[in-house]
Structure formats: C-alpha cells, structure tokens
C-alpha cells in the first residue's frame, strides 16, 4: 500500500511538472544557450559581457537569457543599469520541492474534504427520504 502510494505521487508530480521540464529541455536545445550556461557556471556575468563574448547584439542576448530564465535555469538581477545573470539551478530544484510539498498539503486537505462531501451527500439523501 505504502509503495503504491509513493509511486502514484511520483507519477502525479512528474505529470504536473512536465511543462517546466519541457521548457528546460527546449532551452538546452540551443548551442549558444548551452554556452551561456557553461560561462555562467564559471562566473556570473552581465548581459553586456555575454553579448560581447558570444559576438551578439544586446537584443539577441536578452532573448537567449529570457528563454533560460523562463525555464528557471538562469536568474537575473538588475542593479542600477546592469543586469547580472547567474545560474538558477538551485532555485529550480527548490521550487519543484516546494510545489510538491504545497501539492501534498492541498491533497491531504482535499482527502479530508472528500469525507465531508460524502457525509453531506448522505445526510441530504436521508433528509429527503425522511420528508417523504
């Protein structure tokens, strides 16, 4: 029973997080973006640094960083006029764990709510019978 339950939870978890995973893998399908991650793995860098390094326009680099950011692989922070990029791997992992715990909380609440709904349904049926 215990084993079946955890299997079930894992399946659900994978299902609900598929969109984010798809975004992550799509972001990694581009060699420039993999290069950006490699670079950020060595040190944080500004959009300007990255654009120079990869011989791209600022606009082009912003787009790539945007895709990585959407996928949760990179985080950026603007200080003054400079936007600094860093690897966002830890955040991605933390977010997934948090979302799963949040899901378990609602799931536990809703299991209890199921019982109340069943009881109320029964009460209504009994009540109707009694009035008849």
């Amino acid at each position: 029973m215990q084993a079946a339950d955890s299997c079930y939870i894992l399946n659900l978890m994978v299902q609900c997080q598929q969109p984010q995973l798809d975004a992550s893998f799509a972001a990694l399908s581009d060699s420039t973006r993999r290069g950006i991650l490699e670079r950020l793995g060595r040190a944080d860098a500004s959009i300007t640094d990255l654009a120079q390094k990869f011989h791209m326009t600022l606009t082009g680099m912003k787009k790539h960083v945007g895709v990585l950011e959407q996928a949760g692989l990179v985080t950026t922070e603007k200080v003054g006029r400079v936007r600094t990029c860093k690897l966002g791997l830890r955040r991605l992992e933390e977010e997934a764990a948090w979302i799963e715990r949040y899901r378990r909380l609602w799931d536990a609440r809703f299991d209890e709510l199921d019982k109340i709904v069943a009881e109320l349904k029964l009460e209504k049926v009994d009540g109707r019978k009694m009035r008849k």
Partner: protein
Amino acid sequence: MKNPTTVERKSERELVVTRTFNGPAHIVFEAWTKPELLKQWWAPKSFGISFISCEADVRTGGTYRFVFSHPASEQPMAFFGRYIEVTPHSRIVWTNEESADGAVTTVTFEEMGDKTLLVLHELYPSKQALDEAIASGSTGTSGAGEQFEELDTLLVTLVRS
C-alpha cells in the same frame, strides 16, 4: 481510487491547484463556507497542524481568522483576510493579509455531471512575492524527484564540459 490533486505554477505570479470531488457543487461549496465544516478538513492531521480557533464569516465583505498550532512552532500561527466575493455554489475570492505580499485566492466550483471540478488560483502581487514565498518555505526540503535529478546531472555535465 481517489481523485488526483495537481499544482502548477501557471505564471510568474500564479499558482493553480485543481481537484475533482464526487458530489454536486452546492455540497462542496457548503464545506468551504460553514466554519464548523471547514474546521474538519482545512488542517489535515497528517500535516500535524491543528486549529486553535477558526472564525469565518463567508460572505462578500466578511472576514476570516484561522489560528493553528504545529509541534514545530512554539507560537501559534494566524492567517487572516477578507472575502472579496462570495457567489453561492460557484466562486469564493479572499485576501491573505498575514503578510504584506500575500496572494489573492480565487476558488471556483464547476459542476460536471455528479462531480465538481474545483480550481484554486493564487495570484501574488509580484513575481518576487511568489519567489519569496517559495524560498522561505524551501529550507530542509526533501528530494525533488528523479526527473529533476536527471536534468541536474545533464546540466552539471554541460556546465563542466
């Protein structure tokens, strides 16, 4: 078999929880709007939370205040806010005012045959507010699942190559 609960971060500012219940919308709605019923399910025993008090005046403009205890916390935890909209059997909207960056929660009940689809939507004031809510609850986390470990391995390989 029980109905599954799903959670998705729909956007930078939104979380969406869904679940189907085996009963008509008016019954599910009743369980959300009567404090004596709400009290029976909102603090699940398996999470170690228990109600100290549960006050809820569930009507448009009404307020609520839930106070819980948890073995890990010496101080009781209070959650409070206002009901912005209460439409019988279909919709409840409330604020979460225990923190300045609290979300606005909307719950909708949609009857489908003899079942009800419940969608709970939380809208945070900013991306930062939701990120912080996640970060503050992220200490001492358990594993994030095999798929993410796989992705992390892939990334580590890429970054180090």
